[in-house]
Structure formats: structure tokens, C-alpha cells
């Protein structure tokens, strides 16, 4: 049968075509807007920080509440398994305790000597201060950025660039801080660079994340001693954020072109993490106001202008 559907009214067809055109234009505009946003983020990475902090402020407390019963259940399960393995575990721990006591006796003498020497040399050391202890509330396990969220924020004294340390080792540093939440840049993120030293050889380097379970030891300097599997990597304290001596990981693949480190702390393990004050915060050296060659008029100063800062009074730029 030669049958064709009844022809539709031309106005309906035209309306449909117009709507399709409009929606195509809107879609194209939306994609263009996205690309423009990316360029803005390239020029000024801090563009959306306020909105970002607000978004994490909403999500992090929610997750910290949601995960509480799950943590409780996991703890209960752990207690049950502890009960069944108690005897063998106690024997193992006693053996370890004997060994540790012997090492402690040796270390005590060394420590006393070190204290005396430090007093003689008048060494002044900054102390580590814990700002907050918390659990990781949420994490971006499904994105190219490896970050986590804490349900503590500016209200608890957290600021940017504070080290976040777990029981076994370094976890990361705070990146963005909201009122009730903070975002942590994990050491496995490709942006993360941790100044470290190899404990055995004293070589300094950077532990760089690469979005994988392991880290890369890059930019190694110092004596050219080959690494071995099992070399412990600890933070060096350079850069002022991470305190020295925090375990970062152990070498698992001592290649000369880029040794591979396995992190000491699993960044998203269930344990508690502490947020500490930055080890040696870099002083704020940015000029507070414009540098004038001429003094500021009194009228301007009474209206809140910064005091005159003459160019020849400034320290020469490095």
C-alpha cells in the first residue's frame, strides 16, 4: 500500500524547527561558557574559592554524620576479631616490646647527649602544635583531583597550608578552608610536592603524587648513593609547611630515573588525622599598599590611606 502519514501543519513544523535551533544555540553557548570558565581558572585559579568553600561546607558535615554509624559498625567488627586473635597477638606484642625496650635504652643516651649539645649550641626549634584531630569526612575517589574533606574549618582554627598527618604518616595539607569544612590535598594528587629526605642517605628530594597508589621521588639532590628497597622517606621540613621527620613512605622500586615510593599512611584509611600548624609559616612579605615616591597627603591619611612607604626605604627586591 502506498500510504503516507497525513501532512502536518507547516506552523507546527516551523515551531519545532525554531525550538530545535534555539536549544542548539543554548547548548553551544553553554559549552562555550564552560571553556571560558576554564580559561578564567587558568588565569586566576582562586576564582571560585568562596563558592567552593560554601559547597564543601554543606557536604562535609553531611558525610561526617553519615559515616559515623558505619565507623561504629566497623569498630564493632574489629573488636570481635581482636577478641579471637588476642592470645597470639599478645605473644607477638611481647616479643616486639622486648626488642623495642632494648632500642629505647640505647636511644635514651643518645637523646640526652643531643639535648646537651642543642643547649650548648643554643638551638631554637619551632614546636609542632596540633590544631584539630578529626576523621576524613569525604573524599574525591572518582576524580582526577585527589582531595579529601574534613568536617573542621576556619571556625576551628584551620587555615590554608597546614599539614595533615595520620597515625602512620603524612596524609596531605589543607588547600581550601570554609567555615565548617576544609579540603585536604592528598600526597597522591598530581599537584602535591612534599620536600623529603631519604633517611639512610640524607638525599633531599620531592615526593610527587601522580594519581596512582604510589609516589615518585623527583628532583633528588645530595650524595649519589643508590637507593635500596625499603629505604624510609621522611619529610625534610623544607618549604615550611610539613614538620621534619614525618614518615612519607618507603622505597619500593629504586630506579635511578625515578624511585617509586609507597605512602606510609593510606590517605583515606578510616583512622583519625591531626591538622597541625604550619611548621615555619612563610612570613607575609607582599607589600601592604602601593609604594609611593612622594609622601601621602594628610587628608588622604585621615581617610584611611596606608602610611607613606618610600621606595628607597623598601628592602631591595631579591
Amino acid at each position, binding site marked *: 500500500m502506498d500510504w503516507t502519514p497525513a501532512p502536518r501543519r507547516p506552523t507546527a513544523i516551523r515551531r519545532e524547527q525554531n525550538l530545535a535551533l534555539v*536549544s542548539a544555540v*543554548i*547548548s553551544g553557548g*553553554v*559549552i562555550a*561558557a*564552560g*571553556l*571560558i*570558565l*576554564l*580559561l*578564567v*581558572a*587558568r588565569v586566576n*585559579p582562586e*576564582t*571560585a574559592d568562596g*563558592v*567552593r568553600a560554601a*559547597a*564543601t561546607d554543606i*557536604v562535609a558535615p*553531611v*558525610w561526617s554524620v553519615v*559515616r559515623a554509624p558505619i565507623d561504629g559498625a566497623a569498630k564493632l567488627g574489629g573488636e570481635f576479631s581482636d577478641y579471637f586473635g588476642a592470645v597470639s597477638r599478645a605473644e607477638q606484642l611481647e616479643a616486639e616490646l622486648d626488642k623495642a625496650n632494648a632500642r629505647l635504652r640505647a636511644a635514651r643516651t643518645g637523646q640526652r647527649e643531643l639535648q646537651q649539645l642543642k643547649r650548648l649550641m643554643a638551638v631554637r626549634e619551632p614546636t609542632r602544635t596540633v590544631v584539630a584531630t578529626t576523621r*576524613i*569526612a*569525604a*573524599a*574525591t*575517589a*572518582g*576524580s*582526577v*583531583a*585527589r*582531595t*579529601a*574533606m574534613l568536617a573542621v574549618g576556619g571556625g576551628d582554627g584551620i587555615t590554608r597550608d597546614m599539614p595533615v598527618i595520620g597515625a602512620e604518616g603524612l596524609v596531605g595539607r589543607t*588547600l*581550601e578552608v570554609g567555615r565548617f569544612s576544609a*579540603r585536604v*590535598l592528598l600526597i*597522591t594528587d*598530581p*599537584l602535591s610536592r612534599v620536600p623529603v629526605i631519604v633517611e639512610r642517605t640524607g638525599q633531599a628530594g620531592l615526593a610527587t603524587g*601522580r*594519581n*596512582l*597508589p604510589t609516589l615518585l621521588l623527583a628532583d633528588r639532590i645530595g650524595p649519589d648513593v643508590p637507593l635500596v628497597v625499603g629505604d624510609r622517606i621522611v619529610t625534610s621540613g623544607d618549604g615550611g609547611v610539613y614538620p621534619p621527620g614525618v614518615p612519607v613512605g618507603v622505597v619500593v622500586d629504586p630506579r635511578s630515573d625515578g624511585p617509586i615510593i609507597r605512602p606510609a599512611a*593510606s*590517605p*583515606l*584509611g*578510616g583512622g583519625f588525622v591531626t591538622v597541625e600548624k604550619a611548621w615555619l609559616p612563610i612570613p607575609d612579605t607582599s607589600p601592604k599598599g602601593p609604594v609611593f615616591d612622594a609622601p601621602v597627603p594628610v587628608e588622604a591619611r585621615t581617610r584611611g590611606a596606608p602610611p607613606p612607604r618610600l621606595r628607597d626605604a623598601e628592602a631591595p627586591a631579591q
Partner: protein
Amino acid sequence: MPKPRRNDAVSPVIATPPPPALLMTPAERRRWLLSTWRYAVPALASMMLLVLMLAPLPLSVPAMPHLALMGVLVWAMLQPALMPPWLAFCIGALADLLFGVPLGVNATLFAIATGVMRLSGRLFGRHGSGFDWLLVAAVLFGFLLLTGPLMALAGRPTPVLPLLWQWLTSVMAWPLVARGCAAVQRRLAATAPLWRHG
């Protein structure tokens, strides 16, 4: 006034278009206002999947399936009118804010993915769920391939090969997400209000 009849016939609409405002009775107007949330269900469901993605799982590679993108894709397939590219863009922007990646990466890619789903709906018409699966696997792979250049455009070049894990888990999780969203759609369609149009 008779209670709204449950339309048991398979209806693809989760919110039927209301009658002209002039013809609505006050009761109908109230019912209409109370049922407007149905238009937001696709967006809300995708946002819930997005928050679910932030679960603090101890994964050392980005192996969490991209639930938010899959939610957007499945709603673009089930309800193209309620998941337009601009809405996908907004959800993607929210994902950028929550994931800590430069604003615009996920936003652009979500909008593009929705557009691709629309085009494919127009090109291929009605098809089986196996075809959907293949199509979504391809779209997710395109997302994986485009993430690298967009991150580089935003000034943060990143190795994207670890995202292959996410692609694998996402492709495996697709039937689950699709069925979940389809169940939501069926339930909503079964209770969609009916209008007598004056």
C-alpha cells in the same frame, strides 16, 4: 472533586503538562504547585548521586564510578526535556566545586555528554538496553579522553590514565544506575497528576 486516577498505562511523563492557568480550578492550581517538584527529580537525583560519589572509600586509585555523569546520562536518555545541556552544565559545575578541579572541566563535559545523548536519541531512535550500554561506555570513554586536555586548558595538566579504572567501574555500574533511575521514573509516572483541562 474526584481523586486523581492512577494512570496505570505505561506513561513516559513524570510530570504531565498542566492545563492553561486560566482554566485551572483553585484545587487544581494547588495540586499543580504541589507537583512542580517532579520537574526537578532528574536534577535532584543526579545531585544525590554526585554527593554519593564523595563517600570516603579507601581507594588508592580513582576507581569510584562516575555516578553523577551516569545519572545525567540516564536522565538525558529517559527525560531529555528535563535534563537539557544547561542543567547538565550546572550539575557539572557543582561537581567541579565539590571535586576540587578547576571550575568548568566537568561542567563542559557534562553539557557535551548530554548533547551527545540527545543527538544519539535523534539518530538511533528506540533501541535495546545493550545498545545503551555500549553508547554510554563510548560516552564515558570520550569523557576520559577529554578530561586531560580540559585540565591542561585550565592550567593543571594531569595524568588521566588512572581514570581508566573509573571507566571500568563506571561501565560495570551502569546497569545498576540505569535501573535505579528507571525505577524512580516508573514510580513517578505511575503517580503523575492528571488534568481534566477545564
